[in-house]
């Protein structure tokens, strides 16, 4: 049934619109959660459909591909949609428990669902120009979310975010325009059959333009500077959503474009990606170690670990791509948990500056557990999900003989553990330097964090299903003919 593919788009859109139309705060709160749960259910149904029947495609408006608008769902798309559904539900729960009334009245629920609409559209579209349009949809919502409430820090972060996003959009649009001029196609499946016949110089140039455009979105070296400047600014219900979803859209776009379109000169393009991955990993984690504020530290960790996802793409073997996909899914959960937790700590202690925090282990021992679960997963300790993700990537690197990137990956894992240990020592272990003034914390804020933390643990103890799904996603990525056949209806 072709409607299942567009359901992850229609549900957030309908929810967002109803929130706008209804206006009453309590109705919006209910809708916010119901919409997120609906999205999760639709994503599960879509994944099971893709798992049973292979890649699904639908031509919107009933105009045949490559002329109409195509949506296509393979394992990668379906998995990304599913995990964004999980993050959406958890963030909605946190927002409900927190009850930030002014932001709720300014349309938080409508905007966050329109953001999800854009994110899922980007995951599911089968058309390169439409990918640009979906980026714009999610960016427009994120601009408003970024400055919702209008504090000074938010406006300062928002301006940087706006400028960088615009630059990336222009790069992307130029790249799409040039590619269209050279091939006369925009449908990704159609493009995949045509890019091979371009002149190598032109092809590599275009590939680098796309790498730049998506790299800016994904916040990789050397384009990551904007992320730690803007993500810590908005309240945690917004920044956790951004941290979980937005950079992964950039990663998804890179995964898609560099397995479907630009796979001819891998010696050049994918070596560049490996270098970018290594430098992102190293610089991100070193800068994270230098931070004294929790949310900025987490932002740099977010940047650093994007490198792992690119590492698998750069290696471009089945195992490497499996690792990339698994890492992206695992990271969405873990980083959203850590961002939400940072918001919770800020409430409890009135600050996220590490030197001023302390004593949480004594006052809230269960919070220490909630912190350690995702933190260990981020660092890649067994038995957490992050361990399997890193293990797969390192094994892939060793198999492919890319020893340098493996060394970097292992070192960064160690440094991540160090940085998480520092946070634990500062915020949880040491005595607070002076009495802390926290704001009253509504009960139930820990529940969403606990859900994500347990999910990170559960995916580590029972990694097989998700790993198998990631493996199938990797297989599909490495055999573009299946994607092309599903979209165009004929094998070429």
């Amino acid at each position, binding site marked *: 049934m*072709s409607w299942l593919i*567009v359901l992850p788009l*229609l549900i957030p*859109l309908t929810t*967002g619109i109803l929130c*706008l139309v209804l206006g009453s705060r309590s109705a919006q709160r209910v809708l916010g959660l119901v919409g997120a749960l609906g999205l999760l259910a639709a994503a599960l149904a879509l994944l099971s459909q893709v798992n049973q029947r292979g890649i699904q495609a639908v031509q*919107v408006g009933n105009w045949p591909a490559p002329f109409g608008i195509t949506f296509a769902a393979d394992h990668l798309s379906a998995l990304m949609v599913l995990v964004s559904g999980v993050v959406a539900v958890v963030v909605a729960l946190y927002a409900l428990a927190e009850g930030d009334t002014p932001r709720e009245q300014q349309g938080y629920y409508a905007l966050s669902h329109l953001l999800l609409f854009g994110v899922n559209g980007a995951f599911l579209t089968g058309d390169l120009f439409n990918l640009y349009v979906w980026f714009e949809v999610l960016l427009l919502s994120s601009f408003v979310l970024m400055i919702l409430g209008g504090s000074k820090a938010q406006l300062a972060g928002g301006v940087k975010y706006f400028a960088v996003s615009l630059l990336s959009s222009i790069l992307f649009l130029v790249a799409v325009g040039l590619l269209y001029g050279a091939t006369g196609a925009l449908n990704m499946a159609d493009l995949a059959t045509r890019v091979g016949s371009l002149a190598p110089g032109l092809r590599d140039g275009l590939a680098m333009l796309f790498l730049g455009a998506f790299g800016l979105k994904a916040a990789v070296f050397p384009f990551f500077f904007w992320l730690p400047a803007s993500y810590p600014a908005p309240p945690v219900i917004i920044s956790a959503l951004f941290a979980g979803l937005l950079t992964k859209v950039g990663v998804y776009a890179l995964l898609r474009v560099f397995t479907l379109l630009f796979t001819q000169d891998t010696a050049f393009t994918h070596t560049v990606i490996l270098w970018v991955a290594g430098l992102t990993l190293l610089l991100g984690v070193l800068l994270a170690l230098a931070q004294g504020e929790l949310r900025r530290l987490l932002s740099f960790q977010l940047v650093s670990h994007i490198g792992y996802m690119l590492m698998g793409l750069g290696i471009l073997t089945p195992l490497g791509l499996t690792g990339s996909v698994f890492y992206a899914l695992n990271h969405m959960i873990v980083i959203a948990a850590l961002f939400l937790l940072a918001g919770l700590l800020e409430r409890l202690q009135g600050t996220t500056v590490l030197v001023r925090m302390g004593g949480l282990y004594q006052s809230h021992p269960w919070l220490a557990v909630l912190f350690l679960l995702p933190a260990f997963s981020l660092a890649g300790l067994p038995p957490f999900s992050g361990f399997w993700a890193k293990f797969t990537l390192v094994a892939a690197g060793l198999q492919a003989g890319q020893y340098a990137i493996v060394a970097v990956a292992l070192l960064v894992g160690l440094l991540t553990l160090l940085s998480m240990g520092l946070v634990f020592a500062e915020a949880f272990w040491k005595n607070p330097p002076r009495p802390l003034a926290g704001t009253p914390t509504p009960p139930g804020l820990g529940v969403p964090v606990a859900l994500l933390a347990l999910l990170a643990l559960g995916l580590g103890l029972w990694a097989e299903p998700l790993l198998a799904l990631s493996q199938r996603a990797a297989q599909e990525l490495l055999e573009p003919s299946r994607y092309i056949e599903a979209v165009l209806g004929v094998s070429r």
Partner: protein
Amino acid sequence: MNTLILKTTSRFLFTLLLLLSVFLLLRGHNEPGGGFIGALVAVGAYALFALAHGLTAARKLLPLPPLRLVGWGLLVALLSALVAFFLNKPLMTGVWFSLLGVKVGTPVIFDIGVYLTVFGALLSAIFGLEETADRTPEEAP
């Protein structure tokens, strides 16, 4: 702005511009026009009225607050895309039917949604700007 000429003419122009906007909306199906440009003309009508008679008077002429209109516009557009579901066709497939001898289709309904959305979004921007412009002299020290 307090001029008699503007106040008197804006009443006539308001109606005329709104009629023109509906004309443009419906003309858009086969000829230049459409929901977007029609809404721009309608916003022009309201902006003119607000300049001549003040914001409060202009707001009174709206059935709903502008941002709420955006929601309704999006809802209308979404519903037009969903009609195809009942005919077992993919999302947004154009469906045509005859209403009292006039050919009506989901693209027209979609255009009405666009009209409402653009109208609400632009009007809320213009009202917001005029509000700030009204407030600034008082707030300046």
